[in-house]
């Protein structure tokens, strides 16, 4: 079965510093991987995805993620964090079968301090 793991419940970073939010995956077949963000009292928003092609994927709000097949990871990164990036981040993998059903991780709360 497809699954993702987010090993960190919370990540703290100072504004202006680079940030990384970790995600590892377990799949059968080729992985379709995603990052979503949830701002306080808001629904989830799509950030970026990896389907195929370049291992470095660029998304919204200056975020990017690196697909690493050998380490089965898909970490979310940003070179310079903003206080407004503080939110809950979810990694997800598309389930098997011809649907867009996503299996989500447990989420990582990112706190960016001024």
């Amino acid at each position: 079965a497809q699954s993702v793991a987010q090993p960190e419940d919370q990540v703290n970073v100072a504004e202006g510093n680079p940030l990384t939010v970790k995600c590892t995956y377990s799949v059968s077949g080729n992985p379709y991987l995603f990052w979503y963000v949830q701002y306080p009292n808001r629904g989830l928003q799509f950030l970026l995805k990896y389907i195929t092609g370049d291992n470095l994927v660029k998304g919204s709000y200056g975020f990017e993620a690196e697909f690493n097949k050998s380490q089965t990871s898909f970490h979310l990164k940003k070179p310079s964090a903003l206080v407004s990036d503080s939110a809950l981040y979810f990694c997800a993998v598309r389930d098997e079968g011809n649907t867009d059903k996503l299996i989500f991780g447990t989420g990582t709360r990112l706190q960016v301090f001024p």
Partner: protein
Amino acid sequence: GAGVSQSPSNKVTEKGKDVELRCDPISGHTALYWYRQSLGQGLEFLIYFQGNSAPDKSGLPSDRFSAERTGGSVSTLTIQRTQQEDSAVYLCASSLVSGVNTGELFFGEGSRLTVL
């Protein structure tokens, strides 16, 4: 509307009562999903609709939970005889299910259910 609309945004009910949660997806989106978000539990898949049919109901936690979708549009999630462990935020999402946009789900803001 432009986005996925869910109602009510907040619902407080007493244990044992039935509740209905409504989702109005983005016009033209053929796929509709219900997820549940509990504190510290991440997002739990409940059910998936393609059109009016539900090929995947594997996430419904018990037979107290049911959902339907009519006209390929609005969906209702019904919880019968609510229990305190049903307290959560219920999220609805829709998508086009097309190749280039695969996995890009559009979420509503959720319905927060509190069972006393």
